[in-house]
Structure formats: structure tokens, C-alpha cells
């Protein structure tokens, strides 16, 4: 009876009368300078969603993005003025997580392979699989994508993060609920999700078994990942500490599956909620010109363990976006700096070029969304406000920072102007 009634209401509403249409700006046409793209019919980075990018050899832009149910790869030799035809990575369409802080990732392999990862939506709630594909011919063709999580469970495996080490090992870390599923089966409680990873020692032809880093990670925030030493990776993620404190933890991941984690941030954010707001992290000593030895806050630390981090908290002790210099071995943090405590500030990114440390983030002012930038020329001891880099009055993706041969670039997708790459 109930379904008949509801069907009738639907039929009456939809069939006989014109249903109200949300007053959206058109999603289908992107006006880009003099050109207009019909995004209904065109596969293009301007029409897609959630692009991630890097500069190959410092100048050729490599971009991965999603459109409909596919992951695509495209390149640009003129810093985004024009793009090569997009190549579909998955020939079979699959649902791809490209909302919240989910996006496909891109890295370059030891021998120039294009390495891609993403999270595929599976049939359940919050469930997914970690997918990987690579190209060994500069992105002309991609190998059949495969699933990296090895539990075969319909469970959460999402928020993949991809990192290649100096030695060429490939790390994939992600949020995983296999232990939660197991606990529930046994009638036990389980807080949050877990952090898992796998390593490829053969340039992405295959991945190792899955290794657990920690139980009780937060469930819906991106994981920051960076290289550590020659063949290890460092990760920083929002964790659930005792008392439902959602601050950050960090760990060094070893190729043999060993890891240990520390508490990184001390914000005291006690909450059982989804912030949808993960951190970013880069190695503090990733350039030969680093001034770290002149920095009293780093000297005395083993430099291998010094990382620049940015994160968001709404805790009792810190509210807003913060920067800090983090020792991943001792947990010691210095140079704490409040980047922006406006409620409309979100999704900070870090990049370093020579002695210059960049932090970009998104700020909504009530009408428009701006990409803000601050710059440090003393390795994070002090920052200079560089103002707004780009703005939009429409919807927009999170900003990314990428390193080129001659500096750092902002990578940002907006629904109005498509994908933009801008030298900072």
C-alpha cells in the first residue's frame, strides 16, 4: 500500500507537473578563453574532476583526472595551455571515489613509468577497493588496473596515497576497515578504521601483502605521504586517540611491513565527527640547498626525520589551519604557526623549492573562494603573506602544489574555468 501511495505521489509530481529544477550554473560548458568545451561530449581535464598532477623532468605536466566512470591521463608541454588527447586508464568503467578528499593519485616510477592509484566504489556503504595501474610507454597505454588490498572483503579500502621512494619502491597507504568488519562479526566494538599499506619492489608490476600500521584511524580524511630515507615512506593521518581525540599520528613505513607510529599533533580535538579534512606533509630536507643546518629547531634532530606538516583542527588547543616542523621519530614539534583560523579556510598544501617553503589553501569569504599563499624563506621559521593567487565564484576542487624545474606551481580545478596551472 505504502509503495503504491509513494509511487503515485512521484508519478503525479513528475509525470503531470514540471518538477522544480535546482538553479545550478551549467555544468556542461566550460568557457576557457576563446574556446568553449561541450563537456557532455568531450573528455578533457577541464571537464573532468579531481585532477592530480606532477611535472615530469620538471617541465612536462602529467595529469590524472576522473570523468564519468573512468580515470584519464593527459599531458601538457606548455604548462597547461593545451593538452594531449586524454587516455582512458580503465577500459572497463568503474565507479570512482572523487568526492570529499578522495582523488586519483599520480607518481613517476624509477624508469619513468606513469603510476596511478585511485579508490573504486564497491557495492556497500563507504566500501571500496584500492586500484593501481601503470604505463611503461609514457602514458600511451595503461596496464589492466588491479586491486591492491588483499582481503577480498566488501569493506572500506579508500583514501589511497601513493609515494615513490628515492630507491624506486612504490608505497600505497590507505584507510581500511577489514578489522572493523572482523570485530563486528565477533560482536566486538571497534573505533574508526585502520591504516594499511603495501609496497611494490618491481616498479608497480605487483604489490606486497598488506601491512597494518595502526588501528583507530579517522575514517574520511586524506593521508599525507612522503618519502623517508632511501626506501621508506612517512605517513601522517588523522587518528582517533583515547577519549575520541581526533588529532594526528605519523609513522615511518618500512618495505618489510614494519612500522611504528607516534602522536604528531596536540590539538585536543575531542569529537566523534567527520572533519573531511586531512593533513599534508613534505620532507624538510628534500633539497641539497636546504638551510636546515642553520635552523636551531632542526639541528639536533636527525634531519631524516624532519618534516614540514600542515593540518586542520578545531580542538581546544588549536583551531584552524596550522603549520609545524615535525620530528617523526621523537614526535617533537617546533615552529608551530597558525596559518588561518577562518572557518572558511581549508585544505592546505605544502611544497618546497630550494630554500622556499610554500603553503597554499582555500578560503571562502562568503561570496568567493580564494587560493591563499604564504611563503617562508627560512625553512618555516617565519612566513610572508603572498595574498590571493586565484579566485572563483563557483565550485572548486582543493588546491594542489606541484614542483617544476623552475619553481612551484598551483594546480586547481574550478567548474567555471576548468583546470588551471599557475606558476607561483
Amino acid at each position, binding site marked *: *500500500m*505504502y509503495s503504491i*501511495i*509513494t509511487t*503515485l*505521489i*512521484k508519478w*503525479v*509530481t513528475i509525470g*503531470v*507537473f*514540471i*518538477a*522544480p529544477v*535546482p*538553479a*545550478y*550554473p551549467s*555544468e556542461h560548458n566550460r568557457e576557457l578563453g576563446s574556446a568553449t568545451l561541450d563537456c557532455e561530449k568531450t573528455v578533457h581535464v577541464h571537464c573532468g574532476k579531481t585532477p592530480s598532477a606532477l611535472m615530469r623532468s620538471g617541465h612536462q605536466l602529467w595529469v590524472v583526472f576522473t570523468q564519468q566512470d573512468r580515470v584519464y591521463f593527459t599531458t601538457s608541454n606548455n604548462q597547461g595551455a593545451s593538452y594531449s588527447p586524454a587516455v582512458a586508464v580503465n577500459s572497463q568503467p568503474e565507479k570512482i571515489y572523487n*568526492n*570529499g578528499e578522495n582523488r586519483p593519485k599520480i607518481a613517476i616510477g624509477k624508469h619513468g613509468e606513469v603510476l596511478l592509484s585511485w579508490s573504486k566504489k564497491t557495492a*556497500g*556503504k*563507504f*566500501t571500496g577497493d584500492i586500484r593501481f595501474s601503470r604505463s611503461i610507454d609514457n602514458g600511451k597505454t595503461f596496464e589492466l588496473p588491479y586491486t591492491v588490498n588483499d582481503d577480498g572483503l566488501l*569493506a*572500506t579500502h579508500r583514501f589511497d596515497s601513493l609515494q615513490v621512494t628515492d630507491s624506486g619502491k612504490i608505497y600505497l597507504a590507505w584507510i581500511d*576497515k577489514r578489522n*572493523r*568488519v572482523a570485530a*563486528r562479526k565477533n560482536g566486538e566494538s571497534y573505533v574508526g578504521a585502520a591504516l594499511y599499506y603495501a609496497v611494490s619492489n618491481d616498479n608497480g608490476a605487483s604489490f606486497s601483502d598488506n601491512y597494518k600500521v595502526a588501528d583507530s584511524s579517522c*575514517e*574520511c580524511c586524506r593521508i599525507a605521504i612522503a618519502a623517508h630515507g632511501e626506501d621508506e615512506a612517512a605517513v601522517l593521518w588523522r587518528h582517533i586517540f583515547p577519549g575520541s581525540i581526533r588529532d594526528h599520528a605519523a609513522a615511518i613505513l618500512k618495505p618489510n611491513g614494519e612500522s611504528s607510529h607516534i602522536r604528531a599533533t596536540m590539538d585536543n580535538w575531542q*569529537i*566523534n*565527527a*567527520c*572533519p*573531511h*579534512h586531512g593533513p599534508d606533509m613534505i620532507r624538510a630536507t628534500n633539497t641539497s640547498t636546504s638551510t636546515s643546518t642553520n635552523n636551531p629547531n632542526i639541528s639536533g634532530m636527525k634531519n631524516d626525520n624532519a618534516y614540514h606538516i600542515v593540518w*586542520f583542527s*578545531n580542538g581546544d588547543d588549536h583551531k584552524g589551519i596550522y603549520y609545524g616542523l615535525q620530528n617523526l621519530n621523537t614526535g617533537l614539534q617546533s615552529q608551530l604557526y597558525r596559518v588561518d583560523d577562518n*572557518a*572558511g579556510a*581549508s585544505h592546505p598544501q605544502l611544497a618546497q623549492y630550494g630554500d622556499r617553503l610554500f603553503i597554499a589553501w582555500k578560503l*571562502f569569504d*562568503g*561570496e568567493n*573562494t580564494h587560493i591563499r599563499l604564504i611563503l617562508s624563506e627560512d625553512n618555516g621559521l617565519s612566513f610572508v603573506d603572498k595574498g590571493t593567487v586565484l579566485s572563483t*565564484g*563557483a*565550485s*572548486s576542487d582543493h588546491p594542489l602544489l606541484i614542483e617544476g624545474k623552475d619553481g612551484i606551481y598551483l594546480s586547481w580545478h574550478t*567548474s567555471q574555468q576548468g583546470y588551471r596551472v599557475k606558476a607561483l
Partner: protein
Amino acid sequence: MASISRGTHLSRVTVSKPFNWFSIAIVTAVCIAGSLPNAAEPSSVKTFENKPFYHNSLRKIESSYLGQPFLLSVWSRECAPCIKELATLARLKAEYPALNLVLISTDPIENTSETNSLLTELGHPNTVNSWAYADEQAEKLRYSIDKNWYGEMPRSYFYDSKGKRKATSGLLSEALLRNWIHKSVKPR
């Protein structure tokens, strides 16, 4: 996986259905008048679908509950604690029909069928006063709800009869909700 207690809710939904004949009459009458409301309706009119939440919708919701306490809950399908809380809210709403409950989903209204089926699964009747984000620039809607809110969910606003509200973030305990209901809603 999100911990969702299922099972008993569906039967409760079925039991409360006769009310929908009234809904049909109202919806049909409104349709015949030629203007389907796309903003806030008086609380006596319940529609089947999620209503589009625009930057000016909160003001309309607030004026539709003028002089009455109500609970505004902002949630997302991507938020596990929200799913837990929605199940509790469905039970409490069934227990206290006089509870003025407003739900705003931050998931785009284009995917409204997924949102609707989740609400149904969690035990919410089709009469629930449910809204979904209908502006591509989601920041604008967040700002319109609360410019001091960082976007974490679930986010709840307890409105008193004078229109004053108290905001909290994070999963609300059933005890806290019951406490507020006992103070704000007349027992049936």
C-alpha cells in the same frame, strides 16, 4: 562499516502510513495550483522528495518553525557518525511525533534518490522534513547555515522557541537528545 541498527524501523514506517493520504491531497492540491513549493513549506505540509537547499533556505526553514523549538541536523552520506545519529533521530521522531526535526544533507541534490533510500533504510518516514544541498558551490551553503562552522559533521543546531540556537559538532548521545526533547517537546 557503519554501525546501523536495522530491522525494527521498517515496520514502524509502515504503521505510520495512513497519514500519507493527507499528503497526497496536499501535494495534489499544490500541484493543481501549478506551483510546487521549492523552498520551505509550512511544517504541516510534507513532501516526498528532499527539498533543494539554497543559500536562502535556512531563513525559510527558521520562519516555518516560528515560535517552536526545532532540531536542525546537517549530515552527509560520507559521514559514518551521521548515519548512526540519523538512526537514533528516526527512532526518537517515531517516539515523539511532535519533535520538529529538520535534516539537511550536504550531498548534492542530484543524487537525491541515494539520499532518500538511505533515510528510508535508517527508519525515516517520507514525511521527514529533509533537504539536500542545491548549489554547486557548497561553501556558500555552509556559510549560509553558519559562517563559524568548519564543515565537520554531524552538525546540530538546537533552536529554542525564541529562535535562538545552540550549535554542536559530533555524534549526539541519545541521552542528550532525549533530555532536549523532554524540555522542548510536549509528550504525546
